[in-house]
């Protein structure tokens, strides 16, 4: 009976947090002179009204869930991989590099695309390994090493776009020259989303769910995350496992970047990561670091991102409202969780 009651209390606390986040956002909307109900209606109808719009949501879900899958691994090892943003960018850079190299060769497009995605995954993993080496062998906290590397990744992609890979004539913020359509990943009938990309994303989050919960490697990773000192005494070298966590996360982040190039933009653009890395960290936190919960949450986040695009036109509101709603949700859930532990369990 107590177990059931506990579950009920937990659910009530979560619902309370959601209500608070919505109340907070509604108050902001009121302050900005907009009708909250009308805005929420617009957010939802902007993302699910037609199949085409829902395809846009799925297109955003792919990089978001891949980034989330990656950071779930580093979170398991007790690491705050803020560098995931740069790892996505390096993935995109490596994919662009591979496609540029192979597009002239006499190879079937499928092979070129596969090689491009593989290159992107390797690029992400290399960038992550750099943050990992700074952490484990250089004593630089992963948050600051990662942030610094994010800025360097931005510099690298800007340099490539304005320098060696610039469009014929003059380089611009709109990115490199688009790849020929033969190198675009096939899309569903109505366009916008590639079934291959969707398949990769589903496989990615599935692999991470299994890896963390059902393997010895996942268990040892958890041990390192909970207590590196005692896992060292138990014969699990924390440095090696942290490096593996970074590299695996980099593979997923790199795949996200690779798919942004091959199935969304078909070229390298300066903001290729579109903040999906940071958003993935939020999704992982809101899902309480459980892979299966991350799937619907990432879908919801992707939906309000798409729904908010029309806000400036329809309601003269800034589209950053989606970020406000996402951040408020995570903040209030964190607070509710803390309040529950502090005041409900002890009584």
């Amino acid at each position, binding site marked *: 009976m107590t177990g059931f009651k506990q579950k009920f209390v937990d659910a009530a606390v979560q619902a309370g947090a959601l209500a608070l986040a919505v109340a907070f956002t509604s108050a902001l909307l009121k302050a900005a002179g907009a009708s909250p109900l009308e805005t929420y209606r617009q957010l939802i109808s902007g993302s699910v009204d037609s199949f085409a719009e829902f395809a846009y949501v799925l297109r955003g879900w792919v990089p978001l869930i891949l980034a989330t899958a990656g950071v779930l691994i580093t979170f398991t090892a007790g690491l705050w991989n803020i560098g995931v943003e740069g790892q996505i960018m390096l993935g995109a850079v490596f994919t662009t590099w591979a496609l540029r190299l192979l597009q002239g060769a006499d190879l079937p497009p499928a092979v070129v695309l596969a090689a491009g995605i593989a290159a992107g995954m390797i690029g992400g993993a290399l960038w992550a390994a750099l943050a990992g080496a700074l952490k484990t062998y250089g004593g*630089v906290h992963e*948050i600051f*090493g990662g942030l610094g590397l994010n800025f360097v990744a931005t510099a690298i992609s800007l340099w490539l776009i304005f*320098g060696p890979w610039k469009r014929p004539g003059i380089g611009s913020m709109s990115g490199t020259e688009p790849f020929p359509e033969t190198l675009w990943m096939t899309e569903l009938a109505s366009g916008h989303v590639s079934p291959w990309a969707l398949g990769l994303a589903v496989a990615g989050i599935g692999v991470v769910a299994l890896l963390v919960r059902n393997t010895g490697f996942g268990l040892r990773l958890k041990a390192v995350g909970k207590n590196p000192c005692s896992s060292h005494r138990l014969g699990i070298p924390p440095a090696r496992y942290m490096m593996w966590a970074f590299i695996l996360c980099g593979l997923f982040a790199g795949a996200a970047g690779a798919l942004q190039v091959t199935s969304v933009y078909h070229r390298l653009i300066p903001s290729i990561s579109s903040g999906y890395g940071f958003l993935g960290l939020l999704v992982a936190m809101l899902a309480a670091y459980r892979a299966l919960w991350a799937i619907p949450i990432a879908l919801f986040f992707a939906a309000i991102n798409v729904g908010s695009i029309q806000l400036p036109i329809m309601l003269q509101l800034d589209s950053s409202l989606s*970020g406000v709603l996402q*951040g408020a949700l995570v903040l209030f859930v964190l607070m509710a969780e803390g309040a529950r532990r502090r005041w409900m369990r002890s009584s």
Partner: protein
Amino acid sequence: MCGENMLIGLAGVLAATAPLIFAVVGETITERAGVINLSLNGLILLSAMGSFAVAVTTDSLVLGFLAGAGIGAAVALVVAFCSITLRQSQVAVGFVLALLCRDLSYFLGNPFMNRPGPVVPSFRLPHALSIDTVTVLSLAAIVLAWVWFFKTRPGLVLRGLGEQPAAAYVRGVPVNRLRYLYTMLGGAVVGLAGPAYSLSVKAGWRGTISGLDGIGWIALAIVIFGGWNPVRAALGAYLFGILQWLGVALQPALPGVPSQVLQVAPFPVMILTLLFVSIGNAEWVARTISRLPLRGRRFLTRALRSLEARPPASLGVPFEG
């Protein structure tokens, strides 16, 4: 003549770095008390937008700066409440706030986009130099923080909060209440960085293209580089300012390099310096040094020590009083 140009350039760096100085000094105060406020990137944007909005509507620079400090203290209060009272991860709460406050500033700042607003005036000095009140205040903040930390009794207690809160508690110090106080004080000082941008260095509010996104993350890295000492942190900030100024100044000499690349050039340097000040903390370094002959060992240990930045022992650790 060249020397004079140099002097004007350096005075320009001094003024342009003033916001960053507020950010690093404020965060140093907070972290010395044992709390990490990771929300800086969003906090600075929100206080830049809020103080600009207040200054435009009231036509008062002073109220603008007060609003900036107030917003900083309010965001810091959320960090303190979540970490001290609710015992949630400081890193998690700070990171969420960094994103939330950034989007909040873009959302609420929309009506104030590109509006003309008041700008802090600067005074003429001899030799074509000029200085403004914000720069003077930023210099004063460095000195005040240093004196408070190392020359006063409350400053000793402050350092105790971050190093040995249990010992401070036994001696009758209300640890968590003081941590609240210093987190909010530090947040208020960081909050001054906002108006220092939007009312002086980069006057105005231009939403996502204000060019302020990222500053908070840099400030957090500089605090570590500064080894939690306000003077060393300020030197780090000025070094960063000089590197950015050189990036702009060297532009004509390097036509092949796009300007966007030179603007981010200080970051690799930043990572390298972080590596240098942190590598002494790594275990394998200690092990390697212990294998060296005695004379070389002493020299290397001393060299690393002088560079090393050691965080307050209880930084980020909650205290149950």
